[in-house]
């Protein structure tokens, strides 16, 4: 018994050191302080007139179930068709799984980062996931007249500044995209208005209103926070390089496959 107690004490004494050593081993190699532009190092940008510069690498986290991110009084309410589709969505048919673009909002709300490149007349979102991009035209143009006939996987986006908030209007979104990973679908009528506002220089508030009367009873608005990824970069992602999941997929309906 005494031996057992002594052994126990020995083990207890040994564990924290062992755990610490193992944890240290598993950590990513220590990174040197990032050297480069302010948007890479997280330092203050140079003072310039005009709107804030959102350039940089940002991370949101997965879109999940967007109804859980609705602002008070702005909840997502499904139409009967929207509910029928959500209850019966087949997760084996998620376009993301087939290496297709996830859609304009979902590509930003990802566990992979997105880089924003900003200039006065155009802004680009360059997403690590699927290596897809969006272009936001800031030069005063309107959406193309024939957009409804030629929808795009990332939609068509035009933007403007309202004081310090970037407001992006997106239409013509291919109805094969899902607005989130939990499987909310939409019609070709989907209209998104995204508002980007810096809470501080390394925190970006993302408030987006979705309007699509075919799937949702009324417009709903969600809020997410993007964090600047200091010292990080957009890494490789060629989705079809070694895709092996598609051949193993089984029909998985509604709640059974939510993620």
């Amino acid at each position, binding site marked *: 018994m005494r031996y057992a107690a002594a052994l126990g004490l020995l083990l207890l004494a040994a564990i924290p050191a062992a755990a610490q050593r193992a944890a240290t081993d598993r950590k990513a190699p220590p990174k040197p302080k990032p050297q480069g532009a302010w948007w890479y190092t997280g330092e203050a940008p140079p003072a310039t007139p005009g709107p804030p510069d959102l350039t940089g690498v940002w991370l949101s*986290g*997965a879109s999940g179930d967007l109804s859980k991110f609705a602002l008070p009084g702005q909840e997502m309410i499904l139409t009967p068709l929207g509910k029928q589709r959500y209850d019966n969505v087949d997760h084996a048919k998620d376009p993301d*799984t087939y290496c297709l673009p996830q859609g304009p909002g979902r590509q930003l709300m990802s566990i992979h980062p997105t880089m924003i490149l900003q200039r006065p007349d155009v802004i680009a979102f360059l997403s690590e996931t699927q290596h897809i991009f969006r272009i936001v035209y800031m030069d005063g143009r309107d959406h193309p007249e024939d957009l409804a006939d030629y929808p795009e996987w990332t939609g068509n986006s035009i933007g403007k500044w309202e004081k310090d908030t970037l407001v992006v209007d997106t239409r013509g979104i291919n109805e094969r995209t899902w607005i989130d990973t939990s499987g909310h679908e939409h019609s070709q009528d989907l209209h998104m208005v995204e508002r980007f506002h810096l809470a501080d220089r390394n925190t970006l508030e993302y408030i987006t209103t979705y309007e699509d009367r075919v799937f949702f009873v009324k417009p709903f608005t969600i809020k997410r926070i993007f964090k600047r990824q200091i010292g*990080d970069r957009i*890494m490789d992602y060629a989705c079809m390089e070694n*895709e*092996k*999941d598609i051949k193993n*997929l089984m029909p998985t309906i509604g709640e059974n*496959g939510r993620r």
Partner: protein
Amino acid sequence: MRNRLLTAGLGLVCAAAPILAHHSFAAEYDSTKPIVITGTVTKMEWMNPHIYYYVDVKDQEGKVTNFAVEGGTPGSLYRQGWRKDSLKVGDTVTVDGFKAKNGSNYINGRKVTLPDGRRVFGGSSDDGGPATEGKQ
């Protein structure tokens, strides 16, 4: 207890960097079919959209089966500290994971015990799969 604490320590580290899947866990793997395999690494594929490593497992009759184990994406694993040589051909590993629904030799690997005894999270974290320490 030793294992639990070791795992907890690693879990904290691994939790810092979530890993993305591009598919629903349940559309491919069966959460009611957990499997633990121990065997020899025969190949490592450090590619998108998931890393795969292959493990030869010998059963009691001596028959060898080669399992394909799916992990996270290379970029996310890299950020978490994994490197392409974290698992080398010839290494002995133990993988806690789940079997594919279609009965093939594919496994979704969640926890990996490395040759030196370290247990790390190596799976996908936003796929709706079973909770695992280190899972986001």
